[in-house]
């Protein structure tokens, strides 16, 4: 009964918004209703936490002009479809679904609710009312790789990875290539945990990788478990999606931070201005959606300087980590010269030399 009356309110609001054309005094617009579907808990201090910061940024900018809803811990699969559908039924105007695995469910709901706009993070399927968005995390990986190349004593990194999808693969490759520019013999040992968020498994993976010789750990999974292991063992690590220094003050060198605020604000503004269109957005350092957490004090000044120089190079376009020649694991040359295109990156299913996958 609550739902039905809310829909009526929306209908009358739509009707009311035409009245100003008749010369009456402008009615206050009903707030734009925005919803967010989160894979994990906000407390993960990582992926989901970063999206939540994005939402907070939007609230800070728009205040009462928007009203937001969040749903945490939504498992990928049909359950997510029910949650997304319910959010659409509840009258939300714009729904952000923040994980790759929501792709098909979002598309299904988008087909049923043509008036609602959907934004799917890190996917590749679109519709007239469904956009996709992603961030050039691999730019951040290049910086982490550079630091790893300098700081690792064994020359081997452990990489805790979730699923071998292109986004993860390009991250591994970017990290390794950057490290190899500092130390040509650098190796990256990858362990797949088949989950985005599984703290016990991530901790086990970190331990296994360390036992096999890695002294610096990075990850494409969402919890700080691996950082805790590294802190305990006096080793080095990188955070994921947000500054995770509080979990490992000694071990945490830096982290790639996902700053979704600017994108969310941009899209919400477009909905308000009625200029929203289905799009595919892939921003990076330049547009401000990728950033780095503060550098740990133990990183030498020259390494910090190099990292900053690379970041500047990425922003002004003079540096691309995927610059040829690049060989793959079998030794074959995949890129003789030049750089890889976006299309090459988005379908990447091969690893560079030095990666043990």
């Amino acid at each position, binding site marked *: 009964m609550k739902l039905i009356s809310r829909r009526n309110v929306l209908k009358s609001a739509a009707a009311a918004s035409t009245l100003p054309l008749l010369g009456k005094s402008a009615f206050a617009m009903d707030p734009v209703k925005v919803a967010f579907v989160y894979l994990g808990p906000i407390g993960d201090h990582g992926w989901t936490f970063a999206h939540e910061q994005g939402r907070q940024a939007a609230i800070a900018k728009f205040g009462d002009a928007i009203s937001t809803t969040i749903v945490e811990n*939504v498992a*990928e*699969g*049909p*359950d997510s479809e029910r*949650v997304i559908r*319910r959010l659409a039924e509840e009258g939300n105007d714009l729904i952000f679904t923040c994980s790759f695995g929501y792709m098909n469910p979002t598309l299904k709901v988008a087909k049923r609710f043509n008036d609602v706009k959907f934004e799917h993070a890190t996917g590749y399927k679109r519709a007239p009312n469904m956009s996709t968005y992603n961030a050039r995390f691999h730019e951040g990986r290049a910086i982490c790789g550079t630091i790893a190349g300098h700081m690792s004593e064994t020359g081997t990194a452990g990489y805790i990875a979730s699923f071998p999808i292109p986004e993860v693969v390009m991250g591994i490759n970017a990290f390794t290539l950057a490290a190899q520019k500092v130390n040509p013999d650098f190796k990256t040992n990858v362990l797949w945990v*088949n989950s985005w968020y599984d703290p016990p498994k991530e901790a086990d993976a970190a331990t296994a990788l360390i036992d096999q010789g890695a002294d610096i750990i990075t990850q494409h999974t969402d919890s700080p478990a691996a950082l805790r292991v590294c802190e305990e063992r006096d080793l080095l690590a990188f955070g994921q999606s947000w500054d995770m220094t509080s979990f490992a003050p000694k071990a945490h060198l830096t982290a790639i931070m996902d700053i979704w605020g600017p994108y969310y604000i941009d899209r919400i503004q477009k909905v308000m201005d009625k200029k929203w269109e289905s799009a595919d957005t892939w921003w990076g350092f330049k547009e401000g959606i990728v950033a780095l957490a503060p550098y740990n004090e133990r990183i030498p000044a020259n390494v910090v300087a190099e990292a900053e120089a690379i970041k500047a190079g990425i922003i002004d376009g003079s540096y691309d980590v995927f610059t040829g020649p690049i060989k793959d694991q079998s030794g074959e040359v995949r890129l003789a010269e030049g750089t890889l295109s976006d299309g090459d990156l988005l379908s990447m299913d091969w690893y560079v030399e030095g990666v043990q996958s």
Partner: protein
Amino acid sequence: MLIELEKRKEPSQTMLYLTPVIAVLATMIVGGILFTLIGHNGFAAVKEIFITPIIDTHKWQDLGIKAAPLILIAVGLSIGFRANVWNIGAEGQYIVGGLAGTGIALLTWELEGWWILPLMCIAGAIGGALYASIPAFLKTKLNVNEILSSLMLTYASIQLLYYLMRGPWKDPEGFNFPQTRLFNDSQILPEIIPGTIVHLGVPLAFIIAIIAWFVMSKSIFGFQIRVVGSAPAAARYGGFSAKRTIWMAMLIGGGFAGLAGIFEAAGPFQQMVPQFPTGYGFTAIIVAFLGRLHPIGIILGGLVLAVSYVGGEIAQTSLGLPNAAAGIFQAMMLFFLLATDILVKYRLKLNVANQAGDAS
């Protein structure tokens, strides 16, 4: 003792029907209090979880979809439970059934035709039944406890699912994400109420439950099951083979669970994913008990548990309650049912007489 339990002359029919109702009501009250103690709004939680799904007509389609697999699996299990065959591995049989049907779908993904879907469903039922035949064999040949064997097989089947999802059955065009292709239009259970997501599997589950009711109450087979369960010695005298009963019970339980598996894969999921094991095989055990092992009771019990699932999701979006909260209520319903169960066989008696010399 002031309050004593006195055995009734015969089990109370009233209590048989009343206790599930008492269990649900008690769960709502105690659950609400528990949630309030933990710091949430207990009253709102109970309302969103139990009341809203019933009064919000938009949610009825979700109730049907959630209840269908629970009812189907529970009916199959109840036949076994009545015969004292404790198939706890329904979740594994559900998974294997889903996988079997998916296998057919992957083999025929480039084809179309009306025959594909029924073939998938038959494969699902057979797959589940075959998986259940392992504990059946172990029990009849080696007297291995079927509770333990069927339970262990469940966790083995989950690993099988993961292996197939990450390897041979991965969608070649899925960018390496562990899931199969989406099923094509010939392989999806059709929507039977336009505009809703109610798929063919839903009414089929209810129909199968009703057919099971007839079979169990009117046929020799049904009679045989009940006698083997309640009076094994008499059953032997009557010529009912215990081994055959065990086989039938496990195969039926496995077959129904496997069918429920392929219905879920071809209905709500429309592909196979690692998140497929949703625990219906275990929740169905609660449904079977709540429904007193009777198909009609199971239909009602299945709907009640569906309410708790759908309500849990509603509470997730409107109150921010974790999804797992629904599990608390489900478990409480079973606890209360099991606790009040004793009132069927025993009566509460107040001892007002003096207690000196009381020989209890």
